[in-house]
């Protein structure tokens, strides 16, 4: 087989069919499982496949999706940002505090949220790109710094309007209606977070898949040395990826804060693992085999469908986790095992 282009002529007919089935599984395994899941839940829980429920489901997945996209772009450059959840949590505390304690207007609160994400991204990229610390270790350490930091900042308590300080004084600020409307308002009968999620996911997908900068990010992740030899500034692109990851996580935190309306401690933590999971499932979507925005959205959707649908069926939370874990293994197993053959 001097060149792989001419060889398939030797394949016998039945083998070809098996090969085609394998290729189908690699490509559509995850989507197939998601579809089966939706069909099953629609039959088992009549309220599942209604517009009202999907409105809620999509709104519910917005925060997780944004945080997961942050993980995704860091994985694209062969990095790994696990500080995204803590970053989102910090943003929840910072935004609520900025209104309740510092009485900032909504526009500044939004800017502060994005600024916080940028700073976290900048520190991460300094650790990873400048100091060349291993990505996972650096961002894991950041996770603890940010988790601890938000509790120090809030004095370990939940921040809410009308809260009283230790000295008996009432907190001066109020949570603005405009701020709450970010998550709670809707446009064309769909909640704002759904639009925000869709717009950002689409933009990131276009950026990664269709622009030359996206190409270069993937190139940097695939082979930094070859990317450098082809003229790419590897450090700069990795920095951009970590900045983007920080901002995406912060946007997730912003949506979360506006939905909660109070500054709960460590509100973002659970979004890190779900973000990693969505990114990894995304690898397998359509058999792409690399981190990608569309796949991550599908992964986040799968998680949202499971949590929403099985809650309707009164399946407890921990059983849902098990179901999600098993389905993830099946989905990934299908595509990876078949591909290896």
């Amino acid at each position, binding site marked *: 087989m001097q*060149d*792989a282009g001419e060889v398939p002529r030797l394949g016998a007919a039945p083998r070809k069919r098996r*090969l085609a089935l394998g290729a189908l599984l690699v490509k559509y395994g995850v989507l197939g499982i998601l579809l089966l899941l939706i069909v099953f839940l629609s039959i088992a829980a009549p309220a599942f496949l209604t517009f009202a429920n999907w409105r809620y489901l999509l709104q519910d997945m917005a925060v997780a999706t944004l945080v997961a996209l942050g993980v995704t772009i860091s994985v694209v450059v062969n990095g790994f940002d696990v500080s995204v959840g803590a970053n989102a949590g910090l943003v929840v505390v910072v935004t609520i505090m900025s209104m309740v304690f510092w009485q900032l207007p909504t526009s500044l609160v939004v800017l502060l949220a994005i600024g916080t994400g940028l700073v976290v991204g900048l520190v991460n990229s300094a650790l990873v790109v400048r100091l060349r610390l291993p990505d996972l270790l650096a961002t894991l350490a950041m996770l603890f710094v940010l988790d601890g930091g938000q509790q120090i900042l809030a004095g370990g308590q939940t921040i809410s309007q009308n809260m009283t300080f230790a000295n008996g004084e009432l907190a001066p600020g109020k949570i603005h209606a405009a701020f709450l409307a970010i998550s709670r308002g809707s446009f064309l009968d769909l909640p704002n977070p759904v639009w925000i999620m869709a717009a950002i996911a689409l933009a990131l997908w*276009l950026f990664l898949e269709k622009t*030359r900068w996206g190409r270069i990010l993937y190139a940097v992740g*695939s*082979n930094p040395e070859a990317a450098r*030899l*082809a*003229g790419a500034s590897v450090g700069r692109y990795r920095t951009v990826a970590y900045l983007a990851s920080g901002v995406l996580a912060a946007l997730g935190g912003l949506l979360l804060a506006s939905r909660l309306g109070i500054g709960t401690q460590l509100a973002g933590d659970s979004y890190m693992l779900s973000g990693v999971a969505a990114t990894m499932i995304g690898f397998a979507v359509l058999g792409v085999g690399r981190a990608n925005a569309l796949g991550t959205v599908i992964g986040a959707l799968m998680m949202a469908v499971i949590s929403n649908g099985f809650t309707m069926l009164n399946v407890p939370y921990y059983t849902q986790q098990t179901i999600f874990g098993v389905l993830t293994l099946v989905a990934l197993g299908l595509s990876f095992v078949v591909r290896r053959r």
Partner: protein
Amino acid sequence: MLELNGLGKSFAGVSALQGVSCELPGGAITGLLGANGAGKSTLIKVLTGYYTSYQGEVRLDGRTLPLTRPSVAKAHGIHVVHQEVDTSIVPDLSVAENLLLDDIIAGRITTRDVLRSRRVRQEARNVMAPVGLDLEPGARAGDLGLHTKQLLVIARALNQNLRYLILDEPTASLSLKEVDQLFAVVQDLRRQGTGIVFVSHKLPEVMRLCDQALVLRDGQLAGAFDRPFEAEALVAAILGMPLDQEFPARVERPRSREPVLEVDGVEVGSAVKGVGFRAYAGEVLAITGLVGAGKTELLRAIYGLERPDRGTVGFLGRPLRIRHPHQAIERGIFFVPEERRSQGLFIDYSGDWNLAFPSLSSLAPSGFVSTRRERALSRRLADNLDVKGPMDEPVAVLSGGNQQKVAIGKWLARKPKALLMDEPTRGVDIGARLDIYNHIRDLSADAAVVVATSDIDEALGIADRIIVMFGGRVMAELGREEATREAVMRLAVGAT
């Protein structure tokens, strides 16, 4: 005697190896030749128990071996030194631990013994001695050179029951002296009755070392040869047709009046010690010398990959200060690195993707890449270079020669003014090699082409002018008439 009987292996219905029957006698060196993708690696993997299933049978002294696990092959004394020898070495363990790894795994020796006991250290020395190594048993194995690691792996195999040793392209990155050393060890093993399989792209080495030679082509045995070998017959078997010429025909063309590249007094650490040259459009300049002569470091310094300590580089009459490759690329200076898999290609991405990558700024002036234009460009380049194989699948599936064509071809759309190539035909089979030489020749019509190669025959075959380096210095610059094989050889080993 190791007998292969109708050996075959197929993947997803595509056969990589088919009906190979031959005999590998003990106490003899068998050369295994073939183009990239001819089935050599598959054959080696079958013999070392890498696959759980294969067709046909392997008989050792008349007994059929079930080679479905690596441990079976090892138990019967079949060992391999991989081309990527690092895969057989545990870098963080000591030399002694690596040598006695199988004993440690089997529980015969504990790691503590290795570190403490004088007996074990002595044993490690005894194991090393037959291959002529005398390393400090406590040294970290990862710090050893490639050549030493190869000998270490051989020594480890010897320490078990070595009956057959397979060497997969062991000389690809060795210096001449190291090759001699390795060959001496191999010949020693042969005298002791070990059967050797020597896999190589280098015909002269096979002809020098081997007692018999087998040629694979398209997964089948294309020929078996005995001493004395005829190079033409071997080449014809490898290619499936006779090779009329090894190098492209000479073309007399005028070179540019002014040099494209003017390099003066470049020093890089201890690798390059004050090197200067001129490169003109219209000619191929070869920089030759042994492995380690400083050729790679010189090219890398020009391309902005290493910071030179001293010296200047001029480009089209202007001084050039390059700190990052993109500054070279903007000016039309491109570099094809020596390690195509780790430096030249994005191995998981398609040929189309790789070919288009350096041209993205022109394919996507607005930022958005036009898939149609990208495809048109990459297909044009692929046609131009005669790349064989699917261009919409990861380049990892292409043969070495075709991969190299992609690594070179990706620059062609950018109209090079100067092209720096480091070992452009390493690991490339004979057929694709001539294609690449032809492209180098064509490219040199409008660009200054600088080829660094440790293959002296290659330098003689393609260059209009040859610079010979030794120990980081230029020994001489030779025109085509003065450059004889003997003269270049002498200069390359430092004789004047």
